[in-house]
């Protein structure tokens, strides 16, 4: 059997249900019209209107200008932690969807503080090694863990050269409705996929722009007119460990 990396699609119901639903929708729409035209119709349209999903015409990426990133600033880490509901208390197994790393050139002594998160590799080794298909890449390049399928084997953690993933080893509570996470599964930066699907920028990018040094640019790498593409074309940038040829979607400028 060919490994497609996609889980079996869930089974649904037959034609008769479609008919049923159509009838129901008709009735519901009619009653909405009768009862409260403006409000109900709006709410109804929101409920039924399917948003378009992730498209392969887009590749989301991040550009981090390390010359603007101070080592004292942790705005991106704090924003990610509070938005996605994870806490790092300094224990070695604590989650770290994003972390600040200090890199220094031993020759010149030039030092930069660098935010590192999942690099959303185009050729992601975490996806390659995952035995269940839980690690996968969305059409728009975002690499995710489908926790419904993850068995917690942690192969992906070993395969990732950026230490981007962590394992939830304890029961947790108080998760955010938009960021489910729980014991026995592996997790990492999602590029705030729920916000992207809602047309917003990732929490770290937003925090960096407001409380940090405006070091992060987020956008579509496949759109030559996007700000990130223009910035990439204008100044030289590097991918971390480019020698591994994983083609990360996160790129850096101003590294020593």
């Amino acid at each position: 059997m060919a490994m497609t990396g996609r889980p079996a699609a869930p089974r649904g119901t037959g034609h008769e249900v479609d008919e049923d639903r159509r009838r129901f929708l008709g009735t519901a729409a009619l009653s909405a019209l009768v009862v409260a035209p403006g409000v109900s119709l709006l709410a109804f349209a929101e409920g039924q209107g399917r948003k378009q999903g992730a498209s392969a015409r887009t590749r989301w990426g991040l550009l981090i200008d390390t010359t603007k990133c101070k080592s004292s600033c942790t705005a991106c880490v704090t924003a990610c932690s509070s938005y996605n509901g994870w806490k790092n208390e300094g224990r070695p197994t604590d989650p770290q969807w994003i972390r600040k790393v200090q890199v220094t050139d031993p020759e010149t002594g030039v030092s930069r503080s660098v935010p590192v998160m999942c690099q959303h590799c185009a050729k992601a080794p975490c996806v390659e090694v995952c035995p269940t298909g839980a690690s996968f890449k969305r059409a728009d390049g975002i690499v995710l863990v489908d926790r419904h399928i993850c068995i917690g084997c942690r192969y992906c953690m070993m395969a990732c050269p950026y230490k981007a993933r962590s394992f939830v080893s304890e029961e947790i509570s108080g998760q955010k409705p938009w960021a489910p996470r729980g014991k026995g599964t592996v997790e990492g930066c999602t590029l705030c996929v729920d916000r992207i699907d809602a047309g917003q920028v990732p929490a770290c990018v937003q925090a960096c722009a407001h409380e940090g040094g405006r070091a992060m640019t987020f956008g579509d790498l496949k759109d030559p007119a996007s700000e990130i593409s223009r910035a990439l074309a204008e100044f030289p940038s590097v991918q971390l460990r480019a020698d591994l040829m994983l083609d990360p979607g996160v790129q850096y400028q101003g590294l020593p």
Partner: protein
Amino acid sequence: MRDRPVILAGLALLLLLLTAPFWLGAVAHTGSALPAIPRAKGAHCVRPVAWMRKNHMKLLMRVRYEAVHEGIRNRQESLPGCISCHVSRLADGKYPSVTSSKFFCNACHQYVGVRIDCFSCHSNRPGSGAGTVAQSGGEARLVALAAIGNPAIVPPRVAGGSSTARRRREAPWRWP
């Protein structure tokens, strides 16, 4: 043939014993309380109630696949959407514990002895739906971001008409 009444009585007793589980069940059933299902907040469910009773898990499986793998999110048809309508504060102002029978899902699941583990990962409290920004100003801040020269996000473009219709045709399973 003097034993005939004894034999018949024995057979009748045997029959009664063999069918005992059925009779006992019938008696027990009339006596037991049906699950008390907490009322939802909304005017109507996203599907007919009778259909939902039987098929809610199919709908959940489909929206889960669409949201996680395809990025198609519908605020009402999602687990957080169900929770925000079906979970309310109790009389004491607190939300029901996720293990109590007052928690919407448990009302039936405990009655029929089905254990779900959705809420070991998912939030069991109503909150703003996926994609909303609770901590910061949401849309207003996105506008502010655009103003300071950060990229506003253009929704992904899909060529030619309704991609939903195409997906529906190509979907390997039927759509509830």
